[in-house]
């Protein structure tokens, strides 16, 4: 069974540019989560999809971040325009059920904004 995959593994962009991160969850997992770890701090929740619907987006930092999950399969997280403080590692996770169940994490995308 393939795990959660994320693309790209690393992205370096300049301040003001746009970047799109992609996450492919485990097949059949309706729940998809995005998290972010900034500058070695704690991993913070960004948002939660159930199929194609946003269940909870309370962790999204501002309107420069847009997440989509068309068709309830893969998800994209777009940052436009990127700022220096957006640098960090963005993790995606998926789970079969909502609630306090194991989430399967991808390897993360390291975003560097210069």
């Amino acid at each position, binding site marked *: 069974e393939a795990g959660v995959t994320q693309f790209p593994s690393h992205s370096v962009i300049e301040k003001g540019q746009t970047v799109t991160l992609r996450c492919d969850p485990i097949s059949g997992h309706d729940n998809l989560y995005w998290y972010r770890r900034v500058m070695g701090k*704690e991993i*913070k*929740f960004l948002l939660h999809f159930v199929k194609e619907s946003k*269940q909870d987006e309370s962790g999204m930092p501002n309107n420069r971040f847009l997440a989509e999950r068309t068709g309830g399969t893969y998800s994209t997280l777009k940052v436009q325009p990127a700022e220096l403080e957006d640098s960090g590692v963005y993790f995606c996770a998926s*789970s079969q059920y909502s609630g*306090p169940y194991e*989430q*399967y994490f*991808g*390897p993360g995308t390291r975003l560097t904004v210069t």
Partner: protein
Amino acid sequence: AQSVTQLDSHVSVSEGTPVLLRCNYSSSYSPSLFWYVQHPNKGLQLLLKYTSAATLVKGINGFEAEFKKSETSFHLTKPSAHMSDAAEYFCVVSENTNAGKSTFGDGTTLTVKP
């Protein structure tokens, strides 16, 4: 509201000696608790989880953790460290609700000396 405190940012042990990684939590709900491990350039992997069953939880690779409600702790232990245990470890608390929103600790980096 929920929070997690990992009491040590770095722990160093010698191979073959015991490992103790400390975690305290707070939660308005009866929580589910998890320990995840992240090896370099890999995704987070679940070590073990507590979901209101037995208070002593056994996980993979010889790790175990004990849920102590009176102390609001969920410390991770292993009797004998192996070089391959060197990684970063995260304690996570999750609401026992449909959302299952997860809150991460800051992480503890475990170094194993030969």
